């Protein structure tokens, strides 16, 4: 029997597979399809202080082996997440869940995390300082080490739960940001968010997305994600949640070899609703094939 268990900041996961925020809602859409308790955990839809509709449509465009989205953090706001979404989530998921939080000012992040901190089911915070789809807000935080440090400190003040900071790949040196988060007390780093991209419609000769630019995700970005996880693993001592283009059990192993303790699956959920289930069921086979007895032992193995 192979061992797929990993430990993320003191909480043991049955396996390292975590559906990524924004591709899994609050879980219940997928709970209609399969028992989502088989997941390591999942990162729920990015939550902000106030309700957000997000950007105008079209918000989705296709790319070779991937996609662009410019959803723009649509969510009902933290109060409704607590009063309406989390009770529904609780009914279909019994493990600790990861709370993904976004904001537009340091105080927003602190407020939202403080509100959510009281929710027992939340095991970790994943603080998104890297959404490319919100003007002047998210992106700016994630692209400056000083801002990353300020958000990390503010969130750490309001919660004792482990705090993972989700980083943007749209920077010159991601290790500098990761180190700033670590120094500010982050418990872990989560990367990568989407790459800023664009598509142009040849018929209209204008960008396909109403927001013009959007976040690029899917299998196409896996090599970029692997490289950045590899770099950050060498720069910090705190654990890493790796993501970007993960589609198969082999991808999970590859990302863990680069340095990830756990792995998020994003765009794959949207085209293959059973993607995480299939990956988890396939992990033992892939581990045996590559003679891996325990996933814990391979973290950072490529270094």
């Amino acid at each position, binding site marked *: 029997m192979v061992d797929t268990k990993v430990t993320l900041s003191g909480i043991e996961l049955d396996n390292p597979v975590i559906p990524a925020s924004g591709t*899994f809602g609050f879980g219940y859409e997928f709970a209609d399809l399969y028992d989502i308790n088989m997941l390591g955990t999942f990162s729920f839809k990015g939550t902000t202080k106030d309700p957000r509709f997000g950007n105008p449509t079209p918000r989705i465009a296709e790319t*070779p*082996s991937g996609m662009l*989205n410019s*959803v723009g953090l649509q969510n009902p706001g933290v109060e409704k997440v607590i009063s309406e979404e989390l009770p529904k989530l609780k009914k279909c998921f019994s493990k600790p869940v990861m709370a993904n939080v976004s904001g537009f000012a340091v105080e927003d992040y602190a407020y939202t995390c403080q509100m959510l901190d009281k929710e027992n089911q939340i095991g970790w915070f994943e603080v998104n300082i890297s959404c490319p789809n919100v003007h002047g807000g998210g992106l700016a935080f994630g692209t400056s080490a000083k801002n990353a440090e300020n958000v990390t400190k503010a969130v750490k003040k309001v919660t004792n739960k482990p705090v993972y900071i989700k980083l943007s790949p749209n920077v010159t040196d991601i290790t500098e940001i990761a180190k700033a988060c670590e120094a500010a007390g982050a418990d872990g780093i989560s990367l990568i968010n989407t790459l800023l991209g664009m598509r142009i419609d040849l018929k209209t000769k204008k960008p396909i997305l109403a927001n013009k630019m959007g976040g690029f995700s899917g299998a196409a970005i896996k090599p970029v994600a692997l490289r950045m996880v590899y770099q950050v693993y060498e720069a910090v001592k705190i654990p890493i949640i790796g993501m970007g283009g993960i589609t198969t059990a082999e991808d999970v192993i590859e990302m863990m070899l680069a340095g990830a303790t756990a792995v998020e699956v994003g765009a794959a959920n949207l085209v293959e*609703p059973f993607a995480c289930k299939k990956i988890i069921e396939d992990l033992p086979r892939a581990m045996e094939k590559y003679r891996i007895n325990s996933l814990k032992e391979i973290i950072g193995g490529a270094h």
Partner: protein
Amino acid sequence: MTQGIYKVKSNTLIAPSVYRMELLGDTSALTRPGQFINIKIDGLFLRRPISVCDYNDSEITVIYKVVGEGTEILSQCKTNDVLDILVGLGNGFDPEKSGEKPLLIGGGVGVPPLYNLCKQLINKGKSVSVVLGFNTKDEIFYENEFKALGATVTVATADGSYGVKGFVTDAMKDIDYDFFYTCGPMPMFKAIESTVKVSGQYSFEERMGCGFGACMGCSCKTKYGNKRICKDGPVMDREEIIW
């Protein structure tokens, strides 16, 4: 929603760039007319959402127009090819709301999802009128199929080459109806909205990511809050729509 492998029974050109595809497989997830399926296309990342024209216990019929890369590949599918499809997506039309004299209004490739609706309404003993709008005579499809179901069918062509010259709203003028169902392009919807005096249901279209409510790619604002075209729609009640 279910995911399954479906065998192509036929894939036939029925009008310029418009194909009818019959698929064999599990249809248990289809519960209403106006729902859609989401087809995985070899070599492309996102699935392609296509509305269901008709279905029975073992077969799904879709009609689609070749408008881009995905539908181009789909049009090349041959009998006995297999496709990975998510089935039973969206809420569909509600036949219970029809009244006794429903009017079905379809524009271009908005026509297909009205077919099974028409069938269900006629089976319930309703007196169904159908208005089909096309640009020109060559593009017309399914006029006879709707007639064969027992509906009163009026066709409008923008260039006057067949039926009523003008738009669906020109063809609707003399029809007596107490509820309407429609699917078609946005300019047609706006024209209908400025004409109709009764309740009805509109079926919308949007670029989708997942098609099953997870990604929030196709959201819209309604009088009753934000809704997802793919999951809460594609069919919406006239009363909730913000134009």
